């Protein structure tokens, strides 16, 4: 029995189909080319090149939360950079470590940066990673007659020199009509402050969490904590040595990419983020909850950083805390290109 043989017709049909698909693919290709900017925006840095390696001097401060999250969640790794962490009790110490050549990248607050920038300008701020205007704590012993801030006059008060808590103490005293000259000011390392206060070597100290809580625990009712929300807006930044910026600017972009992912994680999973911070600070979750509330964790660069640094430099010079009496150009010490490449929206600093 014969049957119809549509091979010829079939092949012509297939040809037509192939032609149609080719036209559509060409059209889609043209569209893809036209919209390539959109596609470029979603590219991943990690996919482009082999991993970089870098050491990070991490100041274990509440405002370093994004760095802690990025490390914990391996966001730096995902962004294509293997980070070796060196932990320090404060941003001031980690900045010193950077300047000592222990790590090319550090996290530090505005005051240490302002202090160190007077003598050295071989580093740059690449992004602010957090800010808070309620971080400073004055912890005092009641048995030394300190019940109110005014009672601090003439007392032995210690703090970490050239740090944000130093500036906070200055502001706090001013707020209450005092200057450094009205108290017996001394300087110590963060972990020494707690011991000294508990031991009674000093009457009060100016510090932040978790040290304030660490001191209050043994002092119990004998301790008193003074805060002043809104008095001083502290910023915390990622600082990079210039030689690294010059040699491998890509690693900085990758670090910022990892921090941006950490920022998204903190917004998405705040409870997990708080746990990570608590572990990083070795603090209790309750303490961290208040810190979290007072912190703005965001990778950005804005004009307030410049204003703050310049004012703080004036304070340092005016208070004769440094031998140098000339502040550098902070605009030149802020590197905007890396963050601009990663997230241009978050760069509002006029440059």
């Amino acid at each position, binding site marked *: *029995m014969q049957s119809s043989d549509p091979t010829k017709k079939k092949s012509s049909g297939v040809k037509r*189909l192939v032609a149609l698909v080719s036209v559509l693919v060409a059209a889609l290709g043209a569209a893809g080319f036209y919209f390539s900017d959109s596609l470029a925006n979603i590219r991943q840095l990690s996919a482009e090149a082999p991993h970089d390696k870098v050491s990070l001097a991490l100041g274990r401060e509440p405002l370093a939360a994004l760095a802690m999250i990025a490390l914990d969640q391996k966001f730096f790794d995902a962004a294509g950079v293997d980070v070796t962490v060196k932990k320090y009790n404060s941003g001031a110490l980690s900045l010193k470590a950077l300047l000592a050549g222990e790590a090319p990248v550090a996290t530090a607050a505005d005051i240490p940066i302002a202090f160190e920038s007077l003598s050295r300008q071989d580093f740059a701020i690449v992004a602010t990673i957090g800010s808070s205007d309620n971080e400073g704590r004055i912890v005092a012993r009641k048995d030394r007659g300190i019940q109110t801030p005014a009672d601090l006059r003439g007392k032995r008060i210690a703090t970490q020199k050239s740090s944000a808590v130093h500036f906070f103490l200055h502001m706090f005293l001013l707020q209450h009509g005092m200057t450094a000259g009205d108290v017996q000011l001394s300087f110590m390392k963060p972990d020494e402050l707690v011991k000294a206060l508990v031991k009674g070597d000093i009457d009060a100290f100016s510090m932040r969490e978790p040290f304030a809580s660490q001191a209050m625990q043994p002092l119990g009712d004998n301790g008193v904590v003074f805060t002043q929300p*809104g008095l001083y*807006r502290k910023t915390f930044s990622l600082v990079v040595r210039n030689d690294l910026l010059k040699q491998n600017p890509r690693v900085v972009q990758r670090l910022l990419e990892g921090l941006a992912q950490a920022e998204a994680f903190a917004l998405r999973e705040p409870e997990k983020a708080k746990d990570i911070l608590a572990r990083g600070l070795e603090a209790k979750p309750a303490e961290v909850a208040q810190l979290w509330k007072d912190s703005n964790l965001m990778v950005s660069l*804005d004009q307030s950083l410049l204003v703050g640094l310049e004012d703080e430099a004036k304070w340092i010079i005016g208070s004769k805390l440094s031998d140098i009496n000339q502040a550098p150009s902070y605009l030149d010490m802020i590197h905007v290109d890396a963050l601009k490449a990663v997230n*241009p929206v*978050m760069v509002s600093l006029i440059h």
Partner: protein
Amino acid sequence: MNIRKKLYLNAVLPLALVASIGVVLYMTGRYVSDVTAQERVAADLVKGVFELTTVADEYLLNHSERAQRQWGMKHQSLGQLLSELRSKEQVEEAILARVRSEHQGIRTTFSELTANYEKAAKNQQRQATLAQKQAEVPAVISTGKKVVPNPALQEVVAEQDQAKREAATLRELDTRLVNQLLSKSQAMVSGGLQLARINQNKVTQTERNAALAIFGFVLLTGLGISATSLLINRSVVRPIGQVKQGTEIVAKGNIDYRLGIRTKDEIGDLARTFDQMLDNLKQTTASRDELNRANEELKNSTSALIQSEKMASIGQMVAGVAHEINTPLAYVRSNVEIVKDQMDQTKRMIDAYEELAQALTSGADEKSLGEKFNRVNAMAAEFRESNTVEEVKDLLARGLSGLDQIRELVLNLKNFSRLDRERVTGFNLNEGLDNVLQLAKPVLKSKVKVVKEYGEIPFIACSPSQINQVFLNIITNAAQAIDEDKGGTILIKTARTGDNVQIIIRDNGRGIPPEVLPKIFDPFYTTKKVGEGTGLGLSISRKIIEEHGGAIQAQSAIGKGSIFTITLPSAGAVVELRKRA
């Protein structure tokens, strides 16, 4: 899917795609509108922060109460705006949270700043009072003999120093607070700008996405329409082409062809039915071929039978003819024998005459001459007495008559089978009937009286031998229907009826039973004994008549006889018929 659904889909799909594009455009428009609204709000926020900063700057310059009030109003309205702002995006909400936080912080800083300014103003006033007091208080006082510095003045101076220190502290705090205010203002501006940029990017991105979506949907629409058209082409147009091609192939006679379309739609149904029809047709054709073969065989058999019938008829006829010939031949022969015998007597007389003549010429004696003369006379007298000459003449005359009968019979026979099956254009039926009657004489015998009522009829175009065969058959049947002991009549009547010629052959024999009458023209139907008839005589007769464009009918009544009516078209009518054909 059937064709109706496919066509419905073809009509609806582009509509659905266009509707989808409409929905995408509408949604995009709405989204762009929302994002634009957010962008405006972000712009309002930035504007508000700038205004707040401007008023703060004004306050910082002249510390006016109006500027302080305006700052409070602006801060409040900004707070209102911030409290109303909500975003679904986590990043935007985080920026908003930061701006709100800065907004609260800046209030504290501004309050501290104004409080500090009031303190500074009081300090200034105090210092002025102290300066005045210092001017009024004498520098020294005399205590009897001694003039000593005025302790009151010293107190005033100490107070002045304290006031100056406080002023320095207040100035320092003022400086720090101003910078804090600036820093926080900048942070708020940054937040506002970031929100604005995010929203700008969203608008740009949304517009791009919308363009991409529209482009994609247009492509999809094209693809969808093309795909549907291709689908319909593949599943409708092409199968229709296959069906058309198939029908053409089948129309050319190839009934082995099959469409083989297995789609589950109307065309598939049509193709299956078509293929089924071809299967049936093939079976029917096979049956038809078989029938044709059978028919052919039957035809051959029929021809054989017809031939056999014809041979039987001829045999019968020949028997009659032989008889007819035999009878005159017998007496011709008898007469000839008598004549031959007579010829012996004549020879003896001639011999006697020759002896007498020889004796006369040879001069024989008288005695012998007398004897011989007497013998001749005696023989002549005997010859005369026996009337031999008359007898021989009579015998020869009757012999001639017999020979004439034979000649006529042979002529009739010749006429009967004239040209056999060849058609002639002008045949006289009356003559034909006469011929047949002649040939049928042996059958008719003496018991049947034949009455001829021949009318004036036109010649017809026919095959005479076939028509004669019909007449012979019917007349023979009629004769056989007449009982020998009773005798009977066969009436043969011819007449013209319009363009036709009618021949009626009626007998008054036994007649045909009513149950037999309808079957008499059926092939192989016979009431005769086996071997006597083939049952084909009347069947063949009807066939012959019908082939001549005529008709044959039979009527009969038991005991009264039968009437066979034959109608044949006249020669002119046949010519007319041919012309029409």
